[in-house]
């Protein structure tokens, strides 16, 4: 690691931050399932929900989780894109006015 932090690897502050994120994630999942159960939405067939489920499973693995999740949420790159005429329209909201 080029620049190692000098602070303790795992202290109360970091534990509380991770705990908070996990509880927030758990509540978000519960909320989504609860709301879906009273509506017409079917989470089991929703590709976005499948991505969420796959992402949670990857959290249990070791180092590289953040990059793994980014790859999971990414469209694939085709090295032959120029020959194939380019990818179809996709587009996501983001910064710089998009």
């Amino acid at each position: 690691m080029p620049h190692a932090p000098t602070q303790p690897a795992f202290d109360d502050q970091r534990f509380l931050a991770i705990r908070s994120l996990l509880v927030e994630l758990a509540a978000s999942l519960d909320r989504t399932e609860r709301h879906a159960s009273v509506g017409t939405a079917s989470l089991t067939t929703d590709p976005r929900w499948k991505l969420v489920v796959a992402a949670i499973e990857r959290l249990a693995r070791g180092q590289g989780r953040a990059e793994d999740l980014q790859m999971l949420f990414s469209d694939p790159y085709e090295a032959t894109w120029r020959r194939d005429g380019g990818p179809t329209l996709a587009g996501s909201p983001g910064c710089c006015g998009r």
Partner: protein
Amino acid sequence: MHYVDPHIHMVSRITDDYETLARMGCVAVSEPAFWAGFDRRTVDGFRDYFRQITEVEPKRAANYGIAHYSWLCINAKEAEDVKLAREVIAAIPEFLDAANVLGIGEIGLNKNTRNEATVFMEQVELAIRHDETILIHTPHLADKLRGTRMIIDMLSDFPSLDRGRVVIDHVEEHTIRHALDAGYWAGMTLYPVTKCSPERACDLVELYGSERLLVNSAGDWGPSRPVAVPDFIVAMRARGHAEHLIEKVVLDNPLALFSRCRRYVPPTRVADRAGAAAGNARGVAASHRA
């Protein structure tokens, strides 16, 4: 700590934000040309915008002792109209000699379309023809990996391009390696929900080092934090990182990139000049940066 925000859209921010940036230690900002929230209909609409970021914003910034640099281009979102895009590209050289212009940007891809790729390539050619530095926008979310790799693929068509004069912006965990390994600068954008957080930016500094790495807010007219770079500084300090390391990322690195522009003058002189043009009796608050 003094710092530079190398990517922020001040045309979308109120004057109070300039004051806040100055209080936070910001000595310079650079403003890439971007989408206004609506598609401009004529090349003259772009000319007016280029005047705004080469004449008006430098004066607003100078009132708070901040140097304002800018980058010119037609952004990817308006590149679908290739005819208009080419008119804009033809008009850009009219503004390239403006004192605060650093180069061509933020060009790039948005939805990774054929037309976007065409306009991107033509603007890279424009930059090379005029010996300009380049700032590149990469797409968002699911499109980012593909778009970033497409951009690097297209840049490989220009073997004479000095990669040390090109920054690939909005990198995240899955794209930073592609930019750095190819020899480009990489910008980390601290932006709510869709981009990097200050903590994740700290992680990337720890993992990849501080060489050719920038951090910016991309503050604009959407939900964004113009003081995101100070957030990063605080997060780095909380981890116990050395002040010189933090300063390298938030001050030395952006100025090193800017200095690769053939028109570059240091922030104090830029702000002095713009302040004088604005008739700023107070002059530039340069003393706090001395």
